[in-house]
């Protein structure tokens, strides 16, 4: 108890004496935790839309499709069932747009939205009692078909009768996955309208949703429903299938996040260890005094860990709070959900462990301080290093020489501050590399295999007309006929996409990074993902079934393939069987340099009287936009960490030279020269760290992104190193900031009257 009180006083006094540094430590940890939570939240939100939708729509965990309406009371008595949605009558109809038929499940819904599994209206409005011919379409379905609010929604019932309906709203739902991964498309209409379209009860089904008390435990409810309804069940789905079908590929993002997160943690650990270690070193005398008063080794360790660890833990707590705050912001008008517990716990626990380890090591050293405080801890008197002697030889100003000598008299702190700046700088450089890569994606889409900014589907028009229309546009540089079929790999277990675009004689400008472009029938190029899947190498001949036709494919090159995890086979359209290739399914349009895809698209639509279907390619960089947020956030945090390291180094330098200052002044150095000496002492390791970090980052970034690309199937060949001016500016900024940070205390120290004796 007594030690606790005494230690509390000591900690309070110490924190008061170094308020700024303590706040910076807290901020640095707060920053890291906030950045980690924010990126993880965005990542989770962006790649698992189901979670947000499910909570917002108060969705049902299990959906049961039966021939006719089941006994709701009996269902609600099943184990774990909290609420029941429906039953809703649902009729299969066909939506006919521009001659294209899409199957739709038309589901009844009242004007009053249900309490469970209520679709979430995102555009337009929900159904009203007077909406005789109105439907609300599920949003992903509407997007896939290009439907907007107010568009006609003509459906044909099983009887063959068609009904002109109108879209009044678009809504999100967690009842089923996104179209087209999940078919048929979903649309809601009033019960009367549904009755009119499909009067026959036998040709419709009944859909009932069960909301459970514990979503993890679906089995009892599912078993209960099977026992209860038995033969009448047509099919059943649980939230797990829905969630899985909505999930996007997040390997790329996840890996990047993990990389940045780990580096951020390492940097934070370095900063903390550096701050604690530096503080312990500056306090050697005080710690020795404590020991002479009767503190044991363990107690000193405990005091140091408590003080420095508490700062870190406070930072974590603040970071958690800030991370929570992020969830109150909105994305696309929808609030972001807070991070789910598992990653949250992982981040909290991981950071806490890192904080404690980083603090424990220097604290342990502090505990071993010998208890004899009488000998003032003098910095080791280094001989003039070879570098300093060289500086003297070439008649550099004395301040530089002295500073250079000072910079390395204490090895460990010098190394720590070099590394403490090099690691953040390396990560910032890698971040800039990711940024440059994304920019490169956007500026040169042809390098990621997206030379065609637009694809034109003939729609209602004959293919030749579509090709002629497209070719006639002044901004279209080239038109490549294309078709997409599925290809079965040799073991016939997984089908991959076979994309035919251009002909063997006049191939589409795929971005070939290894081998060569296909030039003859039967030759093809593949993405990294496909090569990995097949275990094939360039030059191999692989037996595949392409569009149902057996084909021996000669893989002659590898392309950068951003789609389908790189599991795509690209070949000339003349390699396909005639049934697949004639007429071409679509045309890929390469535009002239500088042409705006949106303008060309509008022109083509106008020229064809809206008959053509023109799609703009989605650049992978747009899907990865969240990375930029991560890069900015982490750069800020890393800069903060670097700053913390620098302050430690500068405080340590001052302490070591407090006695020297008087001597320096006595030697006749002006205050300015004294300040310059001190700045050189702290600045030199900083400059070394920044230069080393930048060099290391620049040399690994392209390789790292390529490695990343390889594992995500895109394939190597996308990594870009940030441009030399960018690197120079970044390094220059950090060095400038470092010198500035070193200058302020140095000037103050140089002006201050320095006592010649030890305190």
């Amino acid at each position, binding site marked *: *108890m*007594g*030690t606790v*009180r*005494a230690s509390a*006083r*000591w900690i309070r*006094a*110490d924190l*008061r*004496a170094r308020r700024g540094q303590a706040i910076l430590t807290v901020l640095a940890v707060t920053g890291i935790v906030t950045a980690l939570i924010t990126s993880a939240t965005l990542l989770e939100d962006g790649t698992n839309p189901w979670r947000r939708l499910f909570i917002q729509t108060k969705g049902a965990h299990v959906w049961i499709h039966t021939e006719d309406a089941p006994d709701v009371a009996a269902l609600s008595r099943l184990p774990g069932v909290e609420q029941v949605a429906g039953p809703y009558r649902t009729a299969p109809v066909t939506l006919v747009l521009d001659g294209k038929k899409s199957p739709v499940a038309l589901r009844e819904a009242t004007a009053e939205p249900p309490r469970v599994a209520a679709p979430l209206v995102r555009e337009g409005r929900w159904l009203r009692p007077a909406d005789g011919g109105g439907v609300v379409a599920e949003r992903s379905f509407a997007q896939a078909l290009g439907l907007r609010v107010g568009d006609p929604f003509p459906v044909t019932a099983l009887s063959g009768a068609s009904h002109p309906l109108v879209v009044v709203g678009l809504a999100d739902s967690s009842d089923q996955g996104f179209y087209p991964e999940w078919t048929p498309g979903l649309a809601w209409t009033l019960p009367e309208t549904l009755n009119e379209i499909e009067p026959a009860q036998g040709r419709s089904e009944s859909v009932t949703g069960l909301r459970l008390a514990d979503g993890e435990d679906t089995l009892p409810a599912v078993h209960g429903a099977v026992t209860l309804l038995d033969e009448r069940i047509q099919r059943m789905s649980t939230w797990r299938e829905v969630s899985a079908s909505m999930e996007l590929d997040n390997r790329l993002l996840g890996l990047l996040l993990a990389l940045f997160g780990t580096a951020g943690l390492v940097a934070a650990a370095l900063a903390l260890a550096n701050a604690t270690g530096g503080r312990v070193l500056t306090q050697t*005398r*005080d710690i*020795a*005094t*404590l*020991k*002479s*008063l*009767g*503190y*044991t*080794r*363990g*107690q000193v360790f405990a005091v140091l860990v408590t003080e420095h660890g508490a700062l870190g833990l406070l930072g974590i707590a603040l970071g958690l709070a800030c991370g929570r705050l992020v969830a109150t912001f909105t994305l696309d008008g929808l609030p972001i959900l807070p991070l789910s517990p598992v990653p949250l716990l992982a981040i909290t626990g991981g950071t806490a462990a890192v904080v404690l380890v980083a603090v424990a090591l220097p604290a342990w050293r502090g505990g071993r301080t*010998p*208890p*004899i*405080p*009488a000998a*003032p801890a003098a910095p080791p008197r280094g001989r003039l290093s070879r570098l300093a002697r060289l500086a003297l030889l070439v008649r550099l100003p004395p301040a530089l020489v002295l500073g250079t000598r000072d910079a390395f008299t204490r090895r460990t702190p010098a190394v720590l501050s070099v590394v403490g700046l090099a690691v953040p700088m390396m990560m910032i450089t890698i971040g800039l590399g990711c940024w440059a890569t994304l920019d490169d994606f956007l500026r040169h889409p042809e390098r990621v295999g997206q030379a065609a900014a637009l694809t034109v589907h003939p729609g209602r028009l004959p293919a030749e007309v579509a090709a002629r229309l497209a070719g006639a546009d002044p901004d279209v540089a080239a038109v490549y006929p294309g078709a997409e079929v599925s290809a079965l790999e040799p073991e016939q277990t997984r089908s991959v996409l076979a994309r035919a675009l251009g002909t063997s004689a006049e191939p589409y400008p795929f971005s070939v990074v290894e081998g060569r472009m296909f030039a003859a029938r039967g030759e093809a190029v593949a993405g990294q993902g496909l090569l990995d899947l097949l275990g094939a190498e360039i030059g191999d001949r692989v037996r595949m079934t392409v569009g149902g036709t057996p084909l021996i494919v000669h893989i002659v090159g590898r392309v950068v393939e951003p789609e389908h995890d790189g599991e795509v086979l690209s070949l000339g359209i003349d390699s396909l069987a005639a049934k697949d290739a004639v007429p071409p399914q679509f045309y890929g349009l390469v535009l002239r340099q500088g042409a705006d895809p949106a303008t060309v698209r509008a022109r083509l639509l106008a020229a064809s009287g809206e008959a053509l279907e023109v799609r703009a390619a989605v650049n992978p960089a747009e899907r990865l936009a969240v990375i930029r947020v991560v890069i900015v956030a982490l750069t800020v945090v890393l800069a903060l960490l670097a700053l913390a390291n620098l302050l430690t180094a500068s405080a340590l330098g001052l302490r070591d030279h407090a006695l020297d200052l008087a001597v320096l002044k006595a030697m006749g150095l002006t205050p300015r020269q004294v300040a310059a000496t001190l700045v050189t002492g702290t600045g030199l390791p900083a400059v070394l760290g920044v230069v080393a970090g930048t060099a290391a980052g620049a040399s690994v970034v392209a390789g790292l992104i390529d490695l990343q690309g390889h594992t995500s199937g895109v394939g190597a060949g996308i990594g870009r190193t940030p441009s030399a001016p960018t690197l120079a500016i970044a390094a220059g900024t950090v060095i400038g900031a470092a010198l500035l940070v070193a200058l302020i205390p140095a000037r103050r120290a140089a002006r201050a009257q320095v006592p010649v*004796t*030890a*305190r």
Partner: protein
Amino acid sequence: MRADPVVTTVNLVKIYQNGGVPVPAVRGVDLRVERGEFVAIMGPSGSGKSTLIHMLGGLDPRTSGEIWLDGKRADTLGESAWALLRRKKIGFVFQFFNLVANMTVADNVELPALLAGASPREARERRERLLDALGLTGCADAAPAQLAGGEQQRVALARALANRPSLLLADEPTGNLDSRNTRDVLKLLGEVHRDGQTIIMVTHDARVASLADRVVSLLDGQIVDDGAVAAPRRRPRGTAGDVVELRG
């Protein structure tokens, strides 16, 4: 039965290893200090005075020999046990004061009391009494750096006395002070000694040593002379008058 001596050492030896070369600093010291004695240890620089006093306080482990404190064997204690012993029984005063720079004078003096388990109130009362007695009442909330050297050393003395230690160890307490401050500090030491405090003080100033009951001379780590200072003060009356004058 006679009370145990406060300190007894038996053939105490300390050999430092300086880069593999053994440096004998203390070579077989037998010392016995009775309760209430004021012993000055003198000797030229490097004769092992600091080493000896550090060993007596457990700051430095001994190489061989025995140390008995208050009749209990202490040299066999581990580092932590020594720390616990120091809390209650030993007060240290160093040449460079060694106040904790970030803490106020009051906190510096209360620290040992709190460490030994006193309640904050008790620690405060003790501190007030001590600072009062040492004429430092006004400085309680000052930072050590704001005080003059002599004042700092008096605070250090107050801190060393906070737990009423059975032994006060002082390593050149006046080595860093001018003559006026030296006088102040010595006067205080004399007073606490008169109140019954056992003191072992290292100094190489013969005038400072003359204040003690007994002077032990060290040379090359061995006791070469151990004698009581003549009971009637050899110092001329004028000096004693100074002390009286200063006190007033």
